[in-house]
């Protein structure tokens, strides 16, 4: 099976609002796919729909050959999907170590991956016993990503990783996500087109709750008119 995820014509609602109105794309295994679009286009809702946090009323979400729409979020996550939410969503009242430990699905996973995680994020090792609130913005983002690496996730959903970070930290983040893609498939929601184009091989453009364009990132980079039309950047 070449595609790890297939999102087939999904329609999602938040309360009475019809947010996703036909989103359709596939994610090839081992790739980085960027979800692009303007603010409010439905990118984060697409990630939440994949995870079952927003209810999918029509269409299918197929992960590793299994239909997951309608399942509970914790059941979907347990299949091997890791989510790094926007706004550096760590648990503020837990220490760095507790934030990592809580992501274990099987006992001892953190110990097995400790070296790998701390090689990627050396700061976390130094601040292991600090509470989440005591970390800088960049460190909180690193912790949010590291948390998704503790369990054996085959697919990582990363939402706006560069948001609010200094350029030097963004460079580091690009490097880290690039390394992660060697182990997991990644879906990246990113406002910063430069970041997305550096990382992703495939793209999906979402506009007003619909997937309007999909394809190879290198083709999008060459099509300045499309970038201007949908992303407002050239």
């Amino acid at each position, binding site marked *: 099976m070449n595609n790890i995820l297939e999102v087939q014509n999904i329609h999602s609602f938040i309360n009475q609002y019809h947010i996703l109105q036909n989103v359709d794309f596939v994610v090839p295994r081992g790739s980085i796919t960027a979800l692009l679009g303007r603010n409010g286009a439905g990118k984060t809702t697409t990630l939440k729909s994949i*995870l079952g*946090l927003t209810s999918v009323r029509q269409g299918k979400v197929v992960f590793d050959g299994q239909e997951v729409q309608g399942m*509970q*979020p*914790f059941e979907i996550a347990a299949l091997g999907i890791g989510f790094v939410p926007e706004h550096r969503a760590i*648990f503020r009242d*837990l220490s760095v170590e*507790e934030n990592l430990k809580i992501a274990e699905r099987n006992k001892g996973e953190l110990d097995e991956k400790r070296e790998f995680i701390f090689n990627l994020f050396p700061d976390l090792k130094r601040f292991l016993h600090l509470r989440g609130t005591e970390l800088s913005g960049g460190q909180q983002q690193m912790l949010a990503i590291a948390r998704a690496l503790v369990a054996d996730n085959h697919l990582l959903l990363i939402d706006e990783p560069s948001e609010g970070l200094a350029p030097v930290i963004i460079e580091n983040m690009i490097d880290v996500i690039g390394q992660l893609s060697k182990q997991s498939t990644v879906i990246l929601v990113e406002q910063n087109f430069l970041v997305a184009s550096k990382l992703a091989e495939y793209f999906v453009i979402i506009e007003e709750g619909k997937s309007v364009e999909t394809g190879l990132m290198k083709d999008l980079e060459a099509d300045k008119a499309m970038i201007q039309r949908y992303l407002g950047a050239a």
Partner: protein
Amino acid sequence: MTTNSNFLTRNRGILIFFVVMLLAPFLIGLLEGSSPAVVLANEGGLSKFLEGLGIEIFILAIFALSFDLLFGITGLLSFGHAMFFAVAAYLTGIALKTLQLPFWQVTLLVLLAAIVQALLFSIVLPRVKGITFTLVSLGLASVFHIIVMSSDMINLTGADVGLQGVPTPAFINPASERFRFYVIALIFLVATYIFYRRFVASPTGRVCVAIRENEDRAKMLGYSTTTFKVVAMIISSITASIAGMLHALYQPIISPTVADLGFTVTALLIVLIGGVGTLSGAIVGAFGFRLLDFTLRRFLGESASFVTGSVYVIFVLFVPYGIIGTLRLEKLSTRAGWKELFSRIRGNA
């Protein structure tokens, strides 16, 4: 040996509290000229009176601890929490007085009822969140309050007058064995606190904290959050029921006021005074609450309620983290404290 010393180090504060509280009746007895033998024989005047006040505080503290586990640790604001306490109190009273069951059977019945109630509350847990859960829990507890107050139930519950004349087992009769009752209530409080601290530090407890902070995030990590909330609810219900049982054994009348919203608000105030989610704040808050109420009532009579209420409003406005919460802070920001407090009450901190 190391395990023992670790236990002593980890629980140093509460163990010091235990020893001080254990010695307090004797020290007070010495001050009024009563020997330790007199205190042990429950014949000391002031020491016996203060033991009574201590028992009330310990019971309130156990009840407030159970509330803090739900609200402060797991993020569930239940306005029906008094029901756990009241059901246990009335069940104890009815089982001892009307059914004349042996004490061990009464205890078993109370524990069983605690679990059943927690499961009853848990039915709504997957469906409602935040303030909706608060109102649903209030609704459930109100039904029990109405039943207790019903004149049809007067033979069992005593309706609005309360349940009187509950025969207390001789070995913990608060009139003749006050010091023993005091020690038992103290042991329950200390044991509950130590157990709660261990629970909060355990992987299950950490998930409860994560649920309080952001339930969706906990779900995204693969946790069935409802299961963890049910576990917290059962532990909390059992604890509140133990407090309710002690209350029924200590007080001459089980008043229906323990079943109404006001009694849940008492737990909320105690936790707010001590510090939400700190656990030790529930103990400090119970002392503050009962001693303030006792002192003001002594000097101001009925108008004490107005002053007490004003004190709490001022307290929440200027000390939003509570006493223990403020002591743990490196820097006090009242505005940040309000924000955190209100987000906890809304249920999405």
